[in-house]
């Protein structure tokens, strides 16, 4: 892995280039969420219809495979690239998946991190996690962390930082030869603990940093300070990855603080709901936008394709958009698919998104 900052904005935001595997990706960049390695809806042969190389980074939680596929078998098959038949993509392994593998701080203990998953509550020890990393062989992986929600006691929060650092060292010592390591940084909603954790991790031999423990109860107002406390302690030239930010505004907050890579569940929830993002990316269009919600219930940032107003709408979701969905299908067709509960609706909507979201530019609000 190689990363270099290309340009700086007035604040902490920066544009960079990430070389990972066979891909060269401009940052800030959004990772695609996956379930057992494949997108939630888009089937693998349609992935090539998404813009490349922006959509080549896939977030994988190795915990997904615990439901029905042994690490031994994955290893035998040859790791994620062989398992998933995706040779042009890069895998970023983070245990937490904000949809289905949620950190369960009450059950986490000194032995391992607990997650609430579809196969029940699982306790993952560092050595088990590293076995998953060795078997799946992602290009990039984050160390195991003890993520706690914003409301825990100071004592519990402090313990989470101590544990996360200890597990970081354990993971690194068990680290396979390939794959870039991102050190996990936690600290809840305490500026002090966030700073302390970041300073510790900054001294470790890692290729980048994963900021965890966010999106677990802290408010959007608290976040910039927490992010700054972390980022200030980190070297500029190494990339930063964050999970748990949802809305575009939150992502922009992250970019403004100096984060380069994001994983968000926003797209998944929108897709399920039948929404399509329609906000413009052009600065002049943004200024002209009236951001007050309209009477129809959707706002200028997104449309709800279930609404009856789209029954006969033969426009593509966004006029002029060149994604697969907009080139081939109309709002009326997607409206119909949503009404008859056909999965193709979600497939088409998920395919529509990355064209918009993946093309975030580095500009302050």
């Amino acid at each position, binding site marked *: 892995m190689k990363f270099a900052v290309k340009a700086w904005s007035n604040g902490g935001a920066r544009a960079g280039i990430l070389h990972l595997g066979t891909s060269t990706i401009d940052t800030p960049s959004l990772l695609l969420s996956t*379930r*057992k390695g*494949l*997108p*939630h*809806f888009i*089937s*693998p*042969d*349609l992935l090539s*219809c998404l813009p490349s190389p922006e959509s080549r980074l896939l977030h994988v939680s190795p915990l997904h*495979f615990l*439901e*029905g*596929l*042994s690490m031994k*078998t994955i290893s*035998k*098959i040859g790791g994620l690239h062989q*398992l*998933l*038949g995706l040779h042009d993509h890069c895998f970023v392994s983070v245990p937490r998946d904000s949809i289905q593998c949620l950190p369960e701080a009450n059950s986490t203990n000194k032995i391992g991190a607990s997650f609430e998953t*579809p196969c029940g509550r699982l306790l993952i020890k560092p050595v088990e996690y590293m076995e998953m990393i060795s078997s799946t062989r992602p290009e990039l992986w984050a160390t195991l962390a003890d993520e706690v929600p914003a409301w825990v006691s100071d004592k519990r929060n402090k313990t989470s930082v101590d544990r996360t650092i200890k597990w970081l060292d354990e993971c690194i010592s068990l680290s396979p030869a390939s794959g870039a390591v991102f050190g996990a940084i936690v600290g809840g909603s305490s500026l002090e603990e966030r700073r302390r954790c970041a300073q510790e991790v900054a001294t470790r031999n890692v290729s980048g940093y994963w900021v965890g423990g966010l999106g677990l109860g802290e408010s959007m107002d608290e976040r910039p300070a927490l992010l700054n406390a972390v980022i200030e302690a980190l070297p500029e030239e190494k990339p930063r990855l964050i999970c748990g930010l949802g809305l575009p505004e939150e992502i922009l907050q992250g970019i403004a603080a100096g984060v380069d890579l994001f994983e968000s569940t926003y797209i998944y929830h929108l897709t399920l709901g039948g929404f399509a993002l329609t906000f413009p990316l052009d600065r002049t269009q943004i200024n002209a936008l009236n951001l007050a919600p309209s009477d129809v219930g959707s706002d200028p940032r997104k449309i709800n394709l279930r609404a009856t107003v789209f*029954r*006969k709408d*033969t426009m593509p979701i966004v006029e002029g958009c060149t994604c*697969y969905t907009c080139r*081939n*299908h*109309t709002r*009326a*067709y997607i*409206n*119909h*698919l949503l*009404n*008859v509960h*056909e*999965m*193709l609706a979600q*497939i*088409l909507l998920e395919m529509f998104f990355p064209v918009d979201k993946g093309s975030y530019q580095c500009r302050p609000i």
Partner: protein
Amino acid sequence: MAGTIKGLATYQLEEIGCQIILGNTYHLALRPTSELIDELGGLHKFMNWPRALLTDSGGFQMSPVDGKPMLLTPEESIQIQNRIGADIIMALDDVVKTTITGPRIEEAMYRTLRWIDRCIAAHKRPHDQNLFGIVQGGLDPVLRDICVRGLVDRNLPGYAIGGLAGGEDKDSFWRVVAQCTATLPEDKPRYVMGVGYPLDIVVCSALGADMYDCVYPTRTARFGTALVPEGVLKLKHRAMAEDTRPIDPTCACMVCKNYTRAYIHSLVTKDAMGSQLLSFHNLYYMMQLSKNLHSSIVQGKFPEFVCNFLQKMFPKGDIPEWVCNAMEVAEIDISSCCAPFRYIQATKVQSNLNEDEIQAV
């Protein structure tokens, strides 16, 4: 389909080699309605499918979704199908289950004949939509014959053999198909509705049928079952969890080229992606089967193809009797795939010996 093959985009269907898709008139009439489809330029445009479409009459699925039985007249059925705009439309017929006996079957057959005239009269787009008639008559050869003659008299673009694939025994099934294909015109397509399993398609093709429709490939995919030359492969089986082979090593589809049984096993019944991938493979399998049937006939190698197909599906030679009988009538020699005992069983049918006499021998 209700405007889409479950979980697959039109791009994928084109890749698989799908040439014609069946649209479910009943569902489309309910949502988004045939009027809306018409207003937006027809079903081809609505779903952006550049190839062929066929709609059924809407009459077969009368079971209510909203609690009200839907009474459909021939005129209404054709009107709805005219609006939807498929390339082939089906006449409204009176279908009865083949497991029923009695005067109802005869009634249904004559009604079907009366209705074909009403369908023809109501058809507003005979130049761009081909109206197929449907042969009914249950399992009664006399009734079937009357129906065939009646439909052929109307000189329709194509003919369907209906009322089958509903629970009748296989022996009765193939005999009805054989009778119909023997008497329907050679130069028009014969479409066996609701068929079906790969074996059934091979047999019906041997008997002279040309077109089929079935939900089986996609439906069975959603239950975790893959179609393979040996029959079926149940991906849910625990044994699949460690199987690193592809579903079908002889299959060239995207799923078999990229995925192991183990991975698909981890998806099926838990993640929609499992159904998607299996549906893709199963449809590809069926398209390959059709392609192979077609090319083997064109190349004059059809009997070899049939034998090869049967050998893979019945490696022990235990080919069902009904298949042997049907192939005999179709004049396809499959003796090389039948285990000797089974072949004797098949020829027993030809003789007039009854059970007791055979025991004595």
